[in-house]
């Protein structure tokens, strides 16, 4: 089967640092594909090039077989790619529900609509609320985003990614900074999503990774040193040496 996302020969350097070094990667429709790697391996940089936030120096990115390498981020979103941020990135001045509603609104035609109050458009608000309920933030819907805890912000990131209805979700360390209970909830939640969405998951929490991933790629110094099933990765010598062994 043709992969949903195909990355070929991706390169990106910052000054002297090669953050992405000739990366090839296939993400198959419906899978949860985890990317693991030590700090500074270039995981976030890779995601940013897939979402369109960063321009690669070389290489191509194909979505459903068509070249999106030079497409800006907002166009990729329209084509069905969404991302969550390792460092929470929300509209802090708006309510929790407003944040998710903006994600729903983005898929509801253009927004050059000047007259009707956005907060009174039932189908958008309802859909936003549904997604908040899914991540357990129903009670917080009308609170100011800035008033929420770090853990709740992480939940909002997920609700927004869900609400965007993107086929491909790029999740950058969604568990970062969560307590064990919150992490477990999120793992269970992502497990339920399995098959409905395609997920590229960056995660440091190995328990989460092995519980969720269909396939795992290991990124070290910007290079993918191995891709395979979880068991293959666990027993891969190079991986043990470069990464897992260090733990």
């Amino acid at each position, binding site marked *: 089967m043709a992969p949903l996302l195909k990355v070929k020969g991706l390169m990106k350097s910052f000054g002297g640092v090669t953050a992405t070094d000739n990366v090839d990667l296939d993400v198959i429709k419906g899978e949860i594909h985890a990317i693991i790697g030590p700090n500074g391996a270039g995981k976030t940089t890779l995601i940013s090039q897939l979402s369109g936030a960063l321009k690669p120096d070389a290489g191509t990115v194909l979505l459903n077989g068509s070249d999106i390498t030079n497409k800006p981020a907002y166009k990729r979103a329209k084509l069905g790619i969404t991302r969550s941020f390792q460092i929470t990135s929300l509209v802090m001045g708006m309510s929790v529900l407003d944040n998710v509603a903006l994600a729903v609104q*983005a898929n509801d035609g253009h927004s050059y609509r000047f007259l009707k109050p956005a907060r009174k458009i039932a189908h958008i608000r309802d859909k936003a609320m549904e997604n908040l309920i899914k991540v357990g933030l129903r009670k917080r819907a009308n609170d100011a985003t800035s008033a929420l805890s770090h853990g709740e912000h992480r939940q909002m990131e997920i609700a927004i990614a869900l609400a965007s209805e993107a086929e491909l979700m790029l999740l950058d360390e969604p568990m970062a900074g969560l307590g064990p209970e919150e992490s477990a909830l999120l793992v269970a939640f992502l497990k339920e999503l399995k098959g409905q969405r395609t997920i590229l998951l960056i995660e440091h929490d190995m328990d989460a990774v092995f519980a969720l991933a269909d396939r795992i790629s290991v990124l070290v110094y910007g290079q993918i040193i191995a891709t395979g099933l979880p068991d293959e990765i666990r027993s891969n010598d190079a991986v043990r040496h470069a990464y897992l062994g260090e733990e």
Partner: protein
Amino acid sequence: MRKMTKAGWATMIGMIALAILPPYFLLTGQAFYVDLATRLVILGIAAVSLNLILGYGGMVSFGHAAFIGLGAYAVGITSYHATWGGFDLIASYNGLLQLILALSISAIYALVTGAISLRTKGVYFLMITMAFGQMAFFLFQSLDVYNGDDGLTIDVRSELPFINLDSPMQLYILSYVSLAVAMLLVKTIVNSRFGMVLQGAKDNNERMVTLGYNTYFYRLAAYVISGVMCGYAGFLLGNFTTFISPDMMHWTRSGELMFMVILGGTSTALGPTLGSSIFILLEEILSSITLYWHLPFGVILIVVVMFVRGGLMGLFKGKGE
């Protein structure tokens, strides 16, 4: 109905005061105050328009006075040629024609300067909008046909159906109603889907782009709307002062507009109007007391901005707002 907020009450009271006081002054023979109120209301429209992009869009434009000038010159130039001949294509006292001209020139100017300025951010945006404003200033300064620096006297005001702009009271009512409409318009826009995108992009552009919004064009649209509204204020100002000069576009004028918005409170409905009112009244009072009024004026403004968070409207903020 929802309970009205303190800011909502303040807005209502402020607008009622502006509706009642000037007619009262006129009836009691204090025409001077009607003049003052008219100026304050017209500049209020300009400040309201600036607030759309500055307050809600995070675009700190330092060249907004250019739109006032363009709107005013649209009246001045057409009227000039109608009086003295030449340029038959646009020579006219017809107010509707002048208005269309004022608004469309403002729109085109906003589209061109906005498209370029919005490629930059923050302090660069501020500088480039200021540079465009100064370009407009120098352009009109160099137009000898229209007396360059010395400016142009408008001998005949815009002729409009039903309204006689030669009547101070009618001019005031038109300006006041325009201000109310402008405030309502901005409020409506801000609460619409478009407004949500605009405010989202001010707060977190990266997030909005990731969601699929091409924020550049949303900003540009807001910039054009704002420019057209400000051009309209210029149309009124030209008719009010009946004297126009490049000085209306000088960067210090843009700075004053910006100050009014910040003084009154950005991202609030009444803020810009309150700011322009206080600004004009203070200027008037202090300059009647002392020749060296700029100094106390500056001090008062700085104190307000520094110690009242969110401008004067910040004083009306309820708990938890």
